[in-house]
């Protein structure tokens, strides 16, 4: 590690934790070490969640030519004469929402499975928080540096779908059950493409450890072009597939079939109110944040700075910046696209994403095998890899739409 990348700000969080830990007697040190990490993750991502919700509402508003929430300000202390004008752009909205959720009545349907109905929101938050454990938030800042970090991530992440099924089943409500079925169909269809879009990264990096995958993406060509996976042909298409699969994994628009407010009156959330509802909501955003964090780790170089001269900015700032950009993109997509039908959802997964991801796996294998090519052969390598991306994309995309449009309307005019 060079001295320039080891500035005070870079080391500060880790050193503060180590200083706190060494104050305690030896038997408590291991425990405290992890407790501080957990506390930091909960505090940072709890606040991050709060402001993601308000950012989402404001951004969605702007994307649709509305204002979004801009009313909630500070509590109106009568000592402040300017309080009426002091609305803080509605930034305190999540805290008002939290108070509202906490004070609402908690209703459990009479026919519900009481235990499962209670467990589902608890577990969904627990599972979605587990995934944060293996994300490298900065240099030396991975909470648990597992050798099989990626496997752990997907194991914990896909368990959240189980809790959605749990919630749907326990509610004893037809809409909830339909939502649970849809969630399962979705998880079966999209867990595979998600994994397949990630495998090329593992193949090229040769490791399952998230920390080492980030380290492998370090370095720059000509000082400005970082060696991130997204800047390779297979990485680019892999990232796109990952984005689609991640959207489906965290049940966000356009893949929000399990929620589907207009069809299933919020699906598995129908029978939840008050703070349990807020927990589901929270878990959804935690899942989104974790998957975005994984996308950043695997394809966008994790905490690596984009240019040679930028590493004086601490690595965790880079990570959070990329994370925010990913989330803004997800919000942008939500503000743009319509919800898919369940048949469109599964067709897209099995007829387009899975074959493309499999071809991409071969592409990554080619890329890994030709790593030693130099000189003009590098251009050949790039060309072959690009052809392996663009060709299948166009051919598969064409096949996907054969006989399916443009749609004609028999009765509606224009």
């Amino acid at each position, binding site marked *: 590690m060079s001295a320039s990348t080891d500035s005070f700000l870079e080391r500060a969080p880790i050193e503060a934790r180590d200083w706190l830990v060494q104050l305690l007697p030896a038997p408590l040190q291991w425990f405290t070490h992890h407790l501080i990490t957990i506390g930091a993750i909960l505090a940072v991502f709890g606040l991050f969640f709060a402001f993601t919700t308000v950012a989402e509402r404001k951004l969605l508003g702007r994307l*649709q030519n*509305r204002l979004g929430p801009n009313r909630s300000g500070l509590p109106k202390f009568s000592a402040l004469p300017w309080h009426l004008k002091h609305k803080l752009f509605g930034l305190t909205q999540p805290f008002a929402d939290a108070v509202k959720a906490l004070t609402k009545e908690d209703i459990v349907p009479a026919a519900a499975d009481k235990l499962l109905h209670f467990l589902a929101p608890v577990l969904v938050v627990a599972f979605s928080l587990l995934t944060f454990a293996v994300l490298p938030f900065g240099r030396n800042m991975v909470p648990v540096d597992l050798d099989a970090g990626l496997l752990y991530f997907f194991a914990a992440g896909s368990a959240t779908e189980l809790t959605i099924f749990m919630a749907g089943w326990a509610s004893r409500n037809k809409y909830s059950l339909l939502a649970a079925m849809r969630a399962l169909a979705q998880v079966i269809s999209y867990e595979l493409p998600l994994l397949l879009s990630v495998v090329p990264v593992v193949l090229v990096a040769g490791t399952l450890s998230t920390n080492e995958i980030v380290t492998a993406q370090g370095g720059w060509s000509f000082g400005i072009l970082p060696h991130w996976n997204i800047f390779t042909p297979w990485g680019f298409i892999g990232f796109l597939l990952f984005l689609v699969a991640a959207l489906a994994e965290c049940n966000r628009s356009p893949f929000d079939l399990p929620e589907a407010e207009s069809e299933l009156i919020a699906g598995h959330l129908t029978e939840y109110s008050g703070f349990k509802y807020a927990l589901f909501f929270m878990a959804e955003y935690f899942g989104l944040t974790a998957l975005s964090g994984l996308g950043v780790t695997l394809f966008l170089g994790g905490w690596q700075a984009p240019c040679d001269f930028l590493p004086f900015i601490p690595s965790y700032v880079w990570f959070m910046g990329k994370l925010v950009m990913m989330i803004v993109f997800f919000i942008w997509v939500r503000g743009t696209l319509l919800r898919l039908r369940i048949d469109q959802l599964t067709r897209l997964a099995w007829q387009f994403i899975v074959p493309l991801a499999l071809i991409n796996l071969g592409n990554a294998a080619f890329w890994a095998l030709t790593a030693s090519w130099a000189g003009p052969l590098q251009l050949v390598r790039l060309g072959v890899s690009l052809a392996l991306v663009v060709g299948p994309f166009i051919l598969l995309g064409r096949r996907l739409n054969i006989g399916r449009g443009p749609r004609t309307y028999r009765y509606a005019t224009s």
Partner: protein
Amino acid sequence: MLGSGIIKGLAVTAKNFVGSYFVPERMVTEQYPEDRPKLPENYRSFPLLVSETAEDPMGTLRCVACQICEKECPPQCIYIEKSKDKKPDATGKMQLYPVVFAIDTSVCMSCGLCAELCPFDSIKMDQVFEVAATNRFAGLLLNREQLAKSNAYYHSIRPVEAAEVDARLAADRQAAEAKAKAAAAAKAAAAAAKAAAPAAQPAPAPVAEAPKPPSPAA
């Protein structure tokens, strides 16, 4: 190519996003308590009673307690008590006036029938929409004093209709004045004739006929 539609869609929303900061016409949201809505002239909420002046609303009410509105009101939300004495109305004619005029706005359905049938242009529809009260019985039952609004206020909410009403009332007043003048003139002529011909006893009948011709013309 697959995905081009998605990119087009993303471009549209991105345009919306940027435009929402720079093009005020895009935003349809009214920041209500700060920005008051501009109501169309024909917007109506609850009835009001027009008085000629703002200084003495009770003395100059146009209402003559004819009770037509009370009888016609479909949900029966108007209650009127007539006075025992009479006061001159807008056209100078002696008329009754309402001692009690109450409208229960919790019953009123804002149909505007009362304003349409009032022959004295006294009851009109207001445009006040912030009518919340802390007491749902007494707070929503508006009395004569609460209902009375000046003609100037009526002009401010419905300029076109109010100008029309004013013109009509002015014409009526002029006609009434002309009629009174003609009657006075005829009376004077009759008195003169009486004085000139004290012997002519059976004169009253033609004299009584004399003021009549101008009245249809008026």
